[in-house]
């Protein structure tokens, strides 16, 4: 779990990873690491304030070099919200995330449908399974040119879609996507905030962290 200056949901992600039964390792944006982590989470927040473009600056952090190398070699990487933005800026995922259609920050309990349950991070879900997970962002609108969109959909790389009102104007209600290999997943909603009904709308988010674990163990 990589912390950038301005990362906000990093502790929360650590908690989620722990709850899912894995051993969380806190990584610092300034360090390339060789330590053998089995997977990486890029947390939500506003890295470097995100004044320029979300993730635009974080993408150049030394730690990202390790993430990019790792991702190319199949290392499971999950980018949540700001992490998703960083992955797009780093071109590990296609498209980009722009200002919400309503141009306002939106914090809501969002209904989602899992579309692709074969990725490293969604294997624990059934295809078509519905979840309720908080969404909170101001630059959450997923955009790409039509060719790219068709390609993503054609290759079944849409991981999750919004149900009900589209909270941010994302093209084709896309809430999350993955790379071709399925090891890199970007997700706008925050599964780490749906791990315990006490502090979230549900525990539906645990699956993202659990999926990985079962995959790693069985592997």
């Amino acid at each position, binding site marked *: 779990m990589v912390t950038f*200056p*301005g990362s*906000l*949901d990093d*502790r*929360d992600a650590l*908690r989620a990873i722990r709850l899912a039964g894995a051993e969380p390792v806190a990584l610092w944006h300034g360090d390339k690491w060789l330590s053998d982590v089995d997977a990486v989470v890029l947390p*939500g*927040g*506003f890295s*470097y*304030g*995100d*004044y320029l473009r979300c993730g635009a600056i974080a993408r150049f952090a030394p730690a990202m070099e390790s993430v990019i190398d790792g991702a190319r070699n199949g290392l499971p990487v999950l980018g949540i919200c700001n992490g998703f933005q960083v992955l797009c800026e780093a071109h590990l995922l296609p498209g980009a995330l722009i200002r919400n259609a309503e141009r*306002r*920050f*939106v*914090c*809501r309990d969002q209904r989602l449908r899992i579309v692709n349950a074969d990725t490293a991070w969604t294997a624990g879900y059934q295809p078509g399974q519905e979840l309720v997970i*908080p969404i*909170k962002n*101001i630059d959450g609108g997923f955009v790409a040119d039509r060719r790219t969109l068709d390609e993503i959909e054609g290759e079944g790389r849409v991981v999750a879609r919004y149900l009900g009102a589209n909270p941010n104007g994302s093209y084709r209600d896309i809430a999350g996507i993955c790379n071709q290999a399925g090891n890199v997943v970007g997700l706008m909603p*925050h599964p*780490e*905030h749906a*791990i315990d009904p*006490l*502090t*979230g709308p549900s525990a539906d988010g645990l699956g993202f962290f659990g999926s990985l674990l079962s995959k790693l163990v069985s592997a």
Partner: protein
Amino acid sequence: MTATRRRAPLDTVQAAESSAEQRQPYAELGLAKDEYARIKEILGRRPTSSELAMYSVMWSEHCSYKSSKVHLKQFGEKAPDQAKEILLVGMGENAGVVDVGGGLAVTFKIESHNHPSYVEPYQGAATGVGGIVRDILTMGARPIAVLDSLRFGAADARDTARVLPGVVSGIGGYGNCLGLPNIGGELVFDPSYLANPLVNALCVGVLPADGIKLAKAEGPGSLVVLFGARTGGDGIGGASVLASASFEREGERRRPAVQVGDPFTEKVLIECCLEIFAADLVTGIQDLGAAGLSCATTELAAAGTGGMRIDLDLAPLRDETLAPEEILMSESQERMMAVVTPDNLEAFFEVCAKWDVAATVLGTVTDGDRLVMSWHGETIVDVPPRTLAHEGPVYRRPVRRPYDQDALNGEHGNGLPRPKTGEQLRATALKLISSPNLADKSWVTDQYDRYVQGNTVLAQPEDAGMVRLPGPDGEDSDVGIAVSVDGNGRYCRLDPYAGAQLALAEAYRNVAVTGARPLAVTNCLNFGSPEDPAVMWQFAEAVRGLADGCQQLGIPVTGGNVSFYNQTGNTAILPTPVVGVLGVIDDVTRRTPMALRGDGARLYLLGDTRDEFGGSEWAHVAHGFLGGRPPAVDLEREKLLADVLIDASRDGLIDAAHDLSDGGLFVALAEACLRGGSGIRLIVPDGADPFVFLFSESAGRAIVAVPRTEEVRFTDLCTARRLPAQRIGVLDILEAAVEVRGQFRLPMAELRVAWASTLPALFG
């Protein structure tokens, strides 16, 4: 600011001694003739222009509390005995600190940013959040939540459409970027706030009970370090002009540069400070808020050894053209000042480097009791710091009951036409639930992150926000804190003494309803001009009421803030003390939510309902009428109600609870039903007037949902404690409506539309 254009020659102490008679613009800086005279007397010479700048901001209403001090004293004098047990730090510091047990302490405080938010809504509100967060951080605490109490002009007024969206996105923009969950607040519309919106922000922080940091510069030889953002022209004269004199009069003439916030810089500053605190690298720390460097240096020195030497020219600037006077007044955000012993300096700088935070040694703590500042080797300031920080002017302003007060209280409004038939009651219900003050607030609250940090147990629209605290080991504990802020300008206009107590009572009740035990109070006193005896009477009465109330409820005031001059011309805003109450709950899993869900659960109304409509939302919405007396206050009853709610939640006797306030029973019920999705069949008790039963605003009441299985135990509890508890209905999932037996029926869908459409229709 003008000085940047016409650059005056450097005014040194030496020059001041030789040119005693030189005229100085003390009046323009908001200083009175005799105040200026006193400065000369203190210094035994005329002040240098830098000293004049410092005195003018430190002696401004905003920083010196010169008009409010004599009244605020009561909070200390009337502090309940409980204060000694729970207060680790009382009033007078950046924020009070409350012992919550288990080696943990909690600090919280509310502060206003009213005038800046009117000038530039986004930045004004954003920097308001930034400022209060730094106050909390300064105590050594990690900020863990914010709340915001907002008041605007009429919802459909043109300027409200400019101010409200800006303020809301400013609070969200800054708080969200800091990773602070927003767990509650207020949104109120009233024409009196049109040109004087109220933006009060509350922040809560948690710290180890033995990790409290104080704002004092001790130990001669220790270094004074300025760190965080560089100093620019932001809000120069902000403290003295914006906050100490009527905005209309001064503001138009010389509007100060607006302060712009940089939440990212603040976020790293927070993490940097917490690492510094953990390593115990500072002996004293102070945030730079109103009056910037003037305030930080004088308060640190005054509270410590007393002596300090500062090389002002070492301060890193964003704008190289700034004159020393301006540097001293600048309100540039995201800056802190620390006192560090020489042997800790290297470690201190290492942490700053890790977080990319710029830090500069500005000077040292010295023996003696003078604060001396130099500018490129020349002495420009040489003052006794206490005379700025503690010994400012104190005024006992004249107070006079407003001429129209009796008339106002006389027009009880009993003659106002009331709804009689079921149809009329139904129409009234819809009208109230869709009125801007009672309608769904999610257009605002959805712009705030309530989840970040992963500890939010309750947040808007619950009665109080609740967050879980970390355990000693840093893991999640079961202990939580609950906070609520409340105020009611209309009640206070009718009776400031009772009104302040009603605000206190509501915040107290809101905390108790969640199952948390109320512990301590913070407050933000928003009033008109203290130079108006009628306003000063309102202020004096409100403070007296609040102090008496806190004493009776046994919860001490730990801090707060005063905002005067909230008026346009001679018309003041409604007197608006905003009260924040903090409570503690041992086991957050036991919290009581407001949502009515459990099918078949019995609905009980706790407390007494009287025919009380003075200052009510009904009189306001249905008749635009304000007159009579506010609801009666009974703080003993509030205590009793709280005890029952807390015990019932601990013993698992209730599924849900919601307090009754604006709009009375019907509005509370509708909110709880809409939250839970369950319908309800309501029975008007025999002999009760349906209108009074549904819409009266009698205080000291709450509704609770009691599972069938617990009904006997719960009613026994109420009987034993002598708390009136009336069974008024049964939850009914299938009903999907609020039905008032024999009067009217409102389908949930219709109710939801009426409730949820208002704000989006107004603000897009």
